[in-house]
């Protein structure tokens, strides 16, 4: 059965967005990422205008991350205090990033910077996570061991002011740490036009030393607020949110997020990390192919990346 999408001005078979939502929702519940870096390109491939794809995706992530946050909160895997601090940093970073894009666009090389940032960030994060989780799995030691190890960097971080205890995560950090790193992810996310879950997750795991399961729940909580803001701004200023498409996507993604959260608890932190690392690396390779292979069409719609 086909449905017509009133904002995207296109017709789509009902099973396609529902199935897509289910798959991306599953990843969301498993890894604490919004899945925008997967969903938006897939929607564009299906003929949805890129601007509508990005805006509508934020709308459905609101549903998926609500569902995922709720599932993780029930089992005590959301660190609200950490989430708020990251959120404040991310919000300020987002504002800075948007200004950065304006400057880059005026200079005329925005697309180059965006694409390169994307490839480098995905590549570095993917490789680091992959190698690190592989090493940890070899040692066959759990998350506790990771926490126990104190690197030079973490010793240095102990000297920062405003140290505070994050009870749920079982860590003590300077409040500045989540604010600054949240801001850093916010800047990059705004430049790349994505939610930034795939950057925030490694920051929480490797910099903030939070246990993987709390990372997933806290990341989803943070993504939820980001996407509420983005959805509203997109609907209000750009009129790009397709409600019907969002409903079809969220039918799948809300269920997928729940299944992902249940399934994720059966996997070890290291296993989760290595699967996410592989997905990130596959996306990186896909983008590199897109950049180097001759496109069939040299013209595309204005908007999106």
């Amino acid at each position, binding site marked *: 059965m086909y449905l017509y999408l009133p904002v995207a001005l296109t017709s789509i078979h009902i099973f396609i967005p529902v199935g897509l939502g289910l798959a991306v929702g599953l990843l969301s519940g498993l890894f604490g990422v919004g899945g925008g870096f997967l969903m938006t390109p897939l929607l564009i491939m299906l003929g949805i205008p890129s601007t509508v794809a990005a805006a509508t995706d934020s709308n459905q992530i609101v549903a998926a991350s609500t*569902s995922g946050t709720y599932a993780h909160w029930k089992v005590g895997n959301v660190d609200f205090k950490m989430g708020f601090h990251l959120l404040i940093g991310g919000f300020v970073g987002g504002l800075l990033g948007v200004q950065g894009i304006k400057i880059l666009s005026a200079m005329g090389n925005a697309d180059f910077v965006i694409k390169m940032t994307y490839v480098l960030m995905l590549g570095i994060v993917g490789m680091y996570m992959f190698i690190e989780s592989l090493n940890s799995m070899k040692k066959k030691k759990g998350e506790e061991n990771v926490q126990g190890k104190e690197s030079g960097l973490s010793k240095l971080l102990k000297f920062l002011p405003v140290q505070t205890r994050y009870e749920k995560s079982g860590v003590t950090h300077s409040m500045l740490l989540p604010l600054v790193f949240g801001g850093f992810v916010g800047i990059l996310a705004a430049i790349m036009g994505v939610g930034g879950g795939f950057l925030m997750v490694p920051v929480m795991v490797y910099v903030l030393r939070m246990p993987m399961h709390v990372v997933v729940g806290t990341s989803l909580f943070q993504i939820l607020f980001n996407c509420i803001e983005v959805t509203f701004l997109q609907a209000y200023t750009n009129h790009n949110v397709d*409600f019907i498409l969002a*409903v079809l996507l969220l039918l799948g993604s809300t*269920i997928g997020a729940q299944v992902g959260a249940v399934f994720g608890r059966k996997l070890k932190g290291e296993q989760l990390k290595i699967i996410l690392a592989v997905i990130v690396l596959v996306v990186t390779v896909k983008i590199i192919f897109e950049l180097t292979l001759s496109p*069939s069409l040299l013209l595309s719609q204005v908007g999106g990346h």
Partner: protein
Amino acid sequence: MRQAQKSEARSRKFTIFFVTITALLGFIVSGGNTSAELTAKANHDHIKVDFFYHGSTVSVSGIADPGTDLIIKIASPEGHETLRQKGKVGGLLWMNVGTLKLGQVPNLYSIHSTKKLEDILDQKEMDKYIIGYPAVSRHAETDPASNEGEQSQWVSEFLKYKEASNLYTASAGKIEIKEKGGKQHYYILTAWPYQAPPGDYLVTVYAVKDRKVIEKTEAKVLVEQVGIVKTFSGMAKNNGALYGIISIISALGAGFGVGMIFRKGGGAH
């Protein structure tokens, strides 16, 4: 095309209106042909875009003088389009390198003829009535305006882009002709793409003889959003804040709702 034909059957179900417009006798271009007669009717000339819309079909039929060739053009009014241009950066990476503005181009353009256009019509005539892709190409304006070679390259990229979006189509020899009572009865069934936005579209039928247009007649096709599609589309455009809030609340509700269902189902623990 095959997909479009499939969609025809579906879309018919949802279309109640079947209005017929008959436009009689256009104007006679060549003075000598006093008995010339050309009629055209477009069935399904009021396409309603509802919730289950997946494109439609439009058939054009009518009567023409014997011995004439026919060209049927379906087009939206001319407008301008802005598109992103891809190009190679550093000789290696494909990226968006700028924007291309095209003027005097229709968003939808569908051209059908009894024979190949270049076999039945002079280029001058093609350009005068904007018949065929080469004529559309010559008529189009591009900005940034560059040399002619580069301009025609980008316009041909534009035609490729439009064909890929199903908005530009061309065919030769697909118009059915039957001789009856000393007249030619013609008929063509065309797939109407769901990608065509709401608006007015003009069907023009040209009778061609001796490589010249001797007569033309017109009919209209109106595409209009109705019901829930119209409501959402209007709200998104005119009341963005409320639309955004409804979208967010619905998403939050759906997320919590599914969370509750899973909790009740006991699957989460």
